[in-house]
């Protein structure tokens, strides 16, 4: 007979899961944010993406995280969510 009872070492909580917003049906006239996370060569990569997006009729706004090592400041997240319909993040080098 095993009488062992253990205590759960986990947080017993799920991290907040956010719903994905509805996808854009067209890029034409949409404002797309490009977030550079400050990794080397991020700018060059996002320059290329910007060119493609403009070609598809989107407006582009550029943003930069102060450092890739830390999560984005809340103010930056809010600014992007207010100014853009969609955002693309340059996640790594």
């Amino acid at each position, binding site marked *: *007979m*095993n009488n*062992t*009872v*253990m*205590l*759960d*070492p*986990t*947080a*017993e*909580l799920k*991290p907040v899961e956010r719903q994905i917003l509805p996808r854009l049906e067209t890029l034409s006239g949409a404002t797309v944010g490009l977030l550079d996370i*400050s990794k080397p060569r991020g700018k060059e990569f996002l320059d290329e993406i910007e060119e493609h997006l403009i070609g598809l009729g989107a407006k582009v706004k550029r943003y930069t995280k*102060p*450092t*890739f*090592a*830390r*999560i984005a400041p809340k103010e930056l997240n809010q600014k992007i969510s207010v100014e853009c319909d969609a955002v693309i993040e340059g996640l*790594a080098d």
Partner: protein
Amino acid sequence: MNQLSSNKFTIVLKKECPTCELIEPVLRQLVAEYEKNISIYVQDDLTFPRSIDKKLDDTSLEFSYANNIEIVPTLICSNDNEEITRTVGWDKSEWRQLTGLASLGEDLIDFKPGCGSKTQEPGMEEQLIARFDKNLLSSRNIPLAESEDEMESCFERGWSDGLPVVPPTSVRVIRMLKGTHRSPDEIIGKIPPDNLPCTIEKVAINAVLAGCKPEYFPIVLASVEAALQDRFCMHGLLCTTYFSSPVMVVNGPIIKEIGLNNGVNALGQGNRANATVGRALQLLIRNVGGGLPGGIDRAVMGNPGKYTYCFAEDESDEQWTTLAQDRGFNRQDSVISLFAGEGLQPIVDQKSRGAESLAKSIANSLRTVVNAKLYGAADAILVISPEHRRVIRDSGWTKENFKEVLCENLMMPGANLIRGAQEISEGMPEKLKDKILSKFRDDGLHITSTGGKAGMFSAIISGWVASGEKGSQIVSQKI
């Protein structure tokens, strides 16, 4: 007598106790006098006392625990369910006074001390708290199925770093919590990467998993508080593709108090305190924070220090300032410092007999941190061995003098370091060509000392490439 006639008497006994055996005639006398108002609890063997028919079973110790019985026999006198007074052991005059029976125990000696209650046996207290104090702990209980192996079930539930863990039973967790005065339900902070609130109890459970003793628990708590300091950037450190993870250096009286290794093989295996304190933080980040390798932990290779990386400084040279002192603490403070680092790069110098030569020699090795052509990228801890420390001290130098000369020898013209220089693409930006560059940023090089007395070897713990304000800086927390 009238006043006493409404009193109730409760007696707690155990067979193992010679004093309890001695007072058997007294019990018979009391039962005869107060039949309905007397309750006799037995902690171990209900066949005892033979001559008494009506006995209550307290082999679970529930009554004894609830009534704080420390000695047997205990006689409690109560009225309207309120305890008025109690006596322990056999003291004839006290028993007579409490029971109002002037002839009680006529044939017995006047006094015989009692024995320890079964509730006082070593390790029993935690078992009783676990059994009867249901409000102390709030974590979910996980009962194991009959066929489940406790060690294997911890692996299966994903609680392990790959090595066996100690199954976190409530008794073990209660024992761990005895290492602190803090309440189990106090929130210590939010553990990255999931940023979920973490109680002292959850830290204790993970310290049990790691194999800590209760006396290590204050260091574990301090290490968690250090890791949660914003300047340490635990979230980013966990997520990085780089090798780094928390490296812990302990200073102060706690080293001796709990037996941390600061001598032979200080950074190696074989010492429980070193091994388990470092492991506890890693397990907490895994289990509470959700920081799983291959999940949000994206390390290309990782490093073996991600199991555990904790050592103590050798503080035997009073003239040599400790890492904690360099960080603004007193020598008498117990302090844990956390550094985002990895690995150990040895430095061999068996020829230098003066501090000047040794500084130049060590500076040569320090230049290779991360990449010999990258300057100001990563911090480092230089770990000086006792023999190298002796060389420095015999030259009449302090640690401060030594660090100054080290730093002078860690300057390099940008032209040698820019991308393409030395026919190597990696390097510093072209714009720094005409500058003189320092290998480490200000406050980027830390020095500590530890290890065995023999061997002219020091070592480098290289830091995260995201060192400094943009990423992680060394943090220290008083224990």
